[in-house]
């Protein structure tokens, strides 16, 4: 599978999904008006990856801001990772939040309570 590499913009995150390494990263700001349009190709790519996942997949989410329209699309990403986890493959989700950003920590905890994959909350100390 070809990797997905997308440069970040002021409203959309940078994305690096690499199927040969099994490492996925979403980083930056996710506040577009139409989040479905942005995330649709990512979820389609994950649908393919789910067919032949690596033994271990590591996912790093390093978001500074995200809007509520992105929140559902990000949940859809996690639901695909949950399916990989259910199929007896190791999945690790690292949720990064900046020091004192209690809202971003809480958002990670929301996903952790919905998705049956262990989340690791990692505080970024500047």
């Amino acid at each position: 599978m070809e990797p997905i590499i997308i440069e970040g913009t002021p409203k959309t995150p940078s994305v690096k999904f690499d199927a040969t390494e099994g490492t996925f990263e979403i980083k930056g700001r996710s506040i577009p008006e139409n989040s479905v349009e942005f995330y649709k190709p990512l979820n389609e790519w994950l649908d393919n990856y789910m067919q032949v996942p690596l033994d271990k997949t590591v996912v790093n989410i390093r978001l500074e801001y995200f809007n509520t329209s992105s929140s559902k699309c990000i949940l859809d990403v996690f639901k695909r990772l949950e399916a990989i986890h259910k199929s007896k493959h190791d999945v690790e989700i690292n949720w990064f939040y900046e020091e004192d950003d209690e809202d971003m920590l809480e958002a990670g905890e929301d996903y952790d309570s919905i998705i049956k994959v262990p989340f690791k909350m990692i505080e970024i100390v500047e």
Partner: protein
Amino acid sequence: MSFDLENLVSDLDIRGAVLYFKGNVDSEIINRALDLVEGKLLATREAPRIRKKVYNVLVESLQNLYHHADLVPRGYHASRPDRYGLVVMDKLGKGYRVTTCNFVSAVHVRELEEKLTRINRSSPEETKELYKEILNHQEITEKGLGGLGLLDIARKTGHRIDFRFRKYDNQNTAFRLTALVATE
């Protein structure tokens, strides 16, 4: 004198506001408003925790106008009838206040009022659970998820959302929404 959305914010000092805009809220206007406010918050060395809350509340408030403002009433002066609204962000001693105004079709008023009343009556824990329920179980449309933006504003501010309606004519109502990000 004919009605203008500005009539709903006559109690605010819009000239001294951090941000003021009235017109069609398109993607470019949202970009410019967010850049302006972020620049001002950085320039005043606002604490990162507050800066992020303000930015998030402003994103949801502006995108509420973008996705949910109903068409302006026939005869109301606007360059385009869609996505028309007004936004004011002002700094008070106790925090940053984000106020938006737009038109709502009369048929949508009751539903919106019930939604906001329910949010304001909920405890923080109930608001969180409702947010997760909608996030997990509702299908997304091009307008987003029903009411998630308002719930997000309520969670991020921790305050009740102030709102008021003013009848424009039998088909249209003007609507004002105010959220406060406390700095204390």
